[in-house]
């Protein structure tokens, strides 16, 4: 039995137990999707349904995105009590949950984090590219996070891990949720080294013209569907600045300036929140390279304020605090 199958089985029994002991009202996890190489988020409310749960390298969604809405009082009737929720969490999902707890979007005591060991998630776009855009009919993620796909006609192809994993998964230092109520794992995954920021540094090293041109090129693809925002667990504002009307920050058209300010504003707003889970990149139907931009925010927060999002519940968010000797070399002097 593969580790993924064993994890899935352990997950089912853990979930069953939680329901039977009356500890939870709802469990958010993954079930098999309708398309090959896909899973889909599932919402389980009783022990009878737990057999739907799966865990494998196709569990690409960051389930933490569902929490703010579940716990928001808005639209709930009088006397409403927040539900007890168990949530299946990869390393990145777990870090997003910490951010939400910290920012009071999810009460810690109502969330049971079920940590699963993640070896990286498969990027379907990369799979398709490797298959020269032939649609696979089925496939599975193997133990070492390589992928076996079958094409129409039965031909089987094995794709290497580095070829198919999301960029954000490739050298992920957090295979497990840093804060966890229940580890669901056949074995403890090895600790990984911290990730460096050479990708961001490489971009910084380009000329301003090149950086701007790349920004223009990527943002021009945007169709303003807001999937990046909706998929992001930490984008939980009740009304996004992009949609405010009083004041109206930006228009709703497709002018580059509007779209740019949307992305500049949204990504900036993620400073100290972004855990580099890649949810925005995964959700984007136009394959915009958002990560080169979101990573900048992660890097600067780390380098300027020594803060990494989603590690500890206690540490205050970096933009709610300060040090008297914070860097101010950017200040204009006469």
């Amino acid at each position, binding site marked *: 039995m593969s580790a993924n199958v064993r994890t899935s089985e352990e997950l089912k029994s853990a979930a069953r137990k939680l329901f039977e002991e009356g500890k939870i009202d709802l469990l958010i996890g993954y079930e098999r*999707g*309708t*398309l*090959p190489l*896909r*899973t*889909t*988020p*599932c*919402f389980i409310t009783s022990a009878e349904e737990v057999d739907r749960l799966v865990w494998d390298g196709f569990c690409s*969604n960051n389930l933490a*995105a*569902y929490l703010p809405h579940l716990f928001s009082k808005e*639209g709930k009737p009088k006397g409403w009590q927040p539900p007890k929720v168990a949530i299946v969490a990869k390393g990145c999902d777990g870090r997003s949950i910490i951010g939400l707890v910290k920012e009071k979007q999810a009460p810690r005591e109502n969330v049971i984090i079920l940590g699963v060991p993640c070896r990286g998630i498969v990027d379907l776009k990369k799979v*398709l*590219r490797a298959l*020269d*855009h032939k*649609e696979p*009919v089925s496939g599975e993620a193997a133990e070492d996070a390589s992928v076996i796909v079958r094409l129409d006609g039965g031909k089987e192809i094995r794709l290497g891990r580095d070829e198919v994993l999301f960029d954000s998964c490739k050298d992920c230092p957090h295979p497990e949720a840093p804060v966890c109520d229940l580890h669901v794992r056949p074995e403890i995954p090895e600790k990984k080294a911290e990730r460096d920021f050479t990708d961001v540094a490489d971009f910084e090293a380009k000329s301003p013209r090149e950086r701007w041109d790349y920004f223009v090129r990527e943002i021009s693809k945007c*169709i*303003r*569907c*807001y*999937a990046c*925002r*909706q*998929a992001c667990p930490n984008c939980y504002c009740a*009304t996004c600045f992009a*949609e405010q009307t009083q004041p109206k920050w930006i*228009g*709703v*058209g*497709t*002018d580059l300036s509007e779209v740019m300010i949307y992305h500049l504003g949204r990504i900036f707003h993620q400073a100290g929140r972004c855990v580099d889970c890649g949810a925005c990149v*995964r*959700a984007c*139907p136009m394959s915009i390279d958002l990560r080169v931009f979101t990573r900048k925010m992660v890097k600067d927060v780390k380098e300027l304020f020594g803060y990494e999002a989603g590690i500890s519940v206690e540490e205050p968010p970096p933009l709610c605090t300060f040090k008297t000797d914070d860097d101010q070399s950017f200040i204009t002097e006469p």
Partner: protein
Amino acid sequence: MAEDMTPRTIDKRKLPELAGLIIAAGHRLYGPVRNGGEVTLTEIAEKPPLDFAYGNFKMSPKNFFLPQSEVICRFCGGDMLKDAVSAEEKKVLLGIRPCDARAVWLMDKVFLEEPGDFYYKQKRDSTILISAACLSPETTCFCTSVGGSPAGTEGSDILLFDLGKALLLDPASPRGEDFLNRFSEMTSEASKKQVSQKEQLAQEAASRLKKISLDGVAEKFARAFDSDLWAAPSQKCLGCGICTYFCPTCHCFDVTDETVREKGRRLRTWDSCMYPLFTLHASGHNPRPSQKERVRQRFMHKFSYSVQNHGELFCVGCGRCIKNCPVNLDLREVITR
């Protein structure tokens, strides 16, 4: 009408020449251009594509008739400028799929109905649609289940079949017939063999499509308004606009004004029933307060209200919403439940 004219055929090698003539006749020609794994409907300056063996365009051609953003009128300092909207250029869309042409035919029912939509009509009147029969449907395709077919002609002016060495051009509207006549020196009459080959290809393609049963879906949905059918899909729906923006028939729009200092304009832009602001009253009241009502609206609009209002399902089975949904919310699951 269309039956009166026999299909024409053209050697694929002569297609660049035909394209040149079309462009020389004052049309802007758009055709399939491959970009990585994606095929987009792109303006063609000279060398036209010879390959119609793609699945479908990444985005539907609805942008050509209902652009994501278009100017309704312009103003300056509180006064409207009257001559702000220019006439449309003549366009030819080459290689769109019959499902997408059918979607245009469906949108016609909304936008050409009285009072006709000025901007839509202008674009529709100046655009020739040459569809390419869909000979290799994708796994997410289900056009035959919603009233279409891989060689359907609704909305098209000409239907093209890729016969290998030659293309068969079958007029599907008087406008298409007229168009073919204008370039008749480039084409010849199709042989009987070619016509039967076309029919065989169409049948083969149709047989490859999985049928899903949608009998009585409109009535079923009308009865299911208050049912728990909507709980599961709306729970996982993230509330982004991908399904509506990629949908070739979703046509809901917003009208907003914007200004930069003195100058301003009124824009019509795509909108989505997935967004909470879509129905939010100025008073703060929202008749569709949660994602449940919003998801329900999308399904009801396509599979129930449209049947009541226009006699047709407003889904053409292109599968874009299924392919692009970030949480794999599969429309087929909901409509067959």
